[in-house]
């Protein structure tokens, strides 16, 4: 049941990205191009999503279980640290370069767009590079902390 609902939620989310124009990098860049001729559409995509989200998350916050009886896993981290800002800046630079962010890139991959496939492959490589770098940095420390 949980797998089915996750699949259905993914389809609805993806169709919303298509309707909203998020899967069209030209439109995304048109929104990010403040100095050129600016297409404000994506602001309305965000606004519409947040409008619904405010109710959904407001309701979810007051519950400890889901409507299906499972556990509610809302993020607990509220740290505003350099990682958050540097990571988000890097992400925004990549987003502006090609006009793809992760969700729309996956939807475009599903539509058979070859350029989305190239982007997704590089994105997966980026995630793996991050994971490997984190291990390299934290592994020696963890070893050092272990009593001999």
């Amino acid at each position: 049941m949980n797998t089915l609902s996750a699949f259905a939620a993914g389809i609805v989310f993806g169709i919303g990205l298509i309707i909203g124009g998020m899967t069209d990098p030209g439109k995304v860049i048109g929104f990010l191009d403040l100095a050129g001729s600016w297409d404000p559409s994506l602001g309305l995509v965000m606004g519409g999503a947040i409008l619904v989200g405010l109710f959904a998350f407001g309701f979810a916050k007051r519950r400890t279980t889901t409507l299906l009886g499972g556990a509610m896993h809302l993020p607990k981290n509220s740290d505003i640290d350099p990682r958050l800002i540097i990571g988000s800046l890097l992400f925004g630079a990549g987003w502006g370069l090609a006009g793809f962010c992760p969700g729309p890139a996956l939807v475009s991959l599903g539509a058979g767009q070859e350029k989305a496939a190239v982007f997704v492959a590089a994105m997966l490589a980026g995630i793996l590079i991050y994971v490997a770098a984190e291990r390299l940095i934290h592994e020696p420390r963890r070893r050092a902390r272990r009593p001999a």
Partner: protein
Amino acid sequence: MTVDWTHFTPWTSLAGGIVIGLGAAMFVLLNGRVAGISGILGGLLVTKREDAAWRIAFLAGLLAAPAVWLLAAPAVQPRIDAGIGTLLAAGLLVGVGTSYGSGCTSGHGVCGLSRLSPRSLIATASFMFAGFVTVYLARHAFA
């Protein structure tokens, strides 16, 4: 700044946003999870196996969305100006950046702002700022 009225699609964009919100609402109310695509994908590459089913199911839903869309409407042709080199660089930046910053447009932008999270507000402001600057540099400063 001039507004591009010919490409401005207020109603379809608002409708798309509402449908995105509904997808996120279904996911949090039925699965108890935040619809943050980068986090769902990243978790699949690092965390334990018992966690994998709902992640794969949600991502499969995203991949299946265009096929479902085609049942009702014609395909939307995207404009992808970026060449292979740009796509590779952009993908790497997005992969590393969303991992390091723990989220993207969906996790921080849609779900985080809906949760009224100050952390996500800072993240969203940061990636929007970087997006504006990057497009300015690419389109106007070095074009």
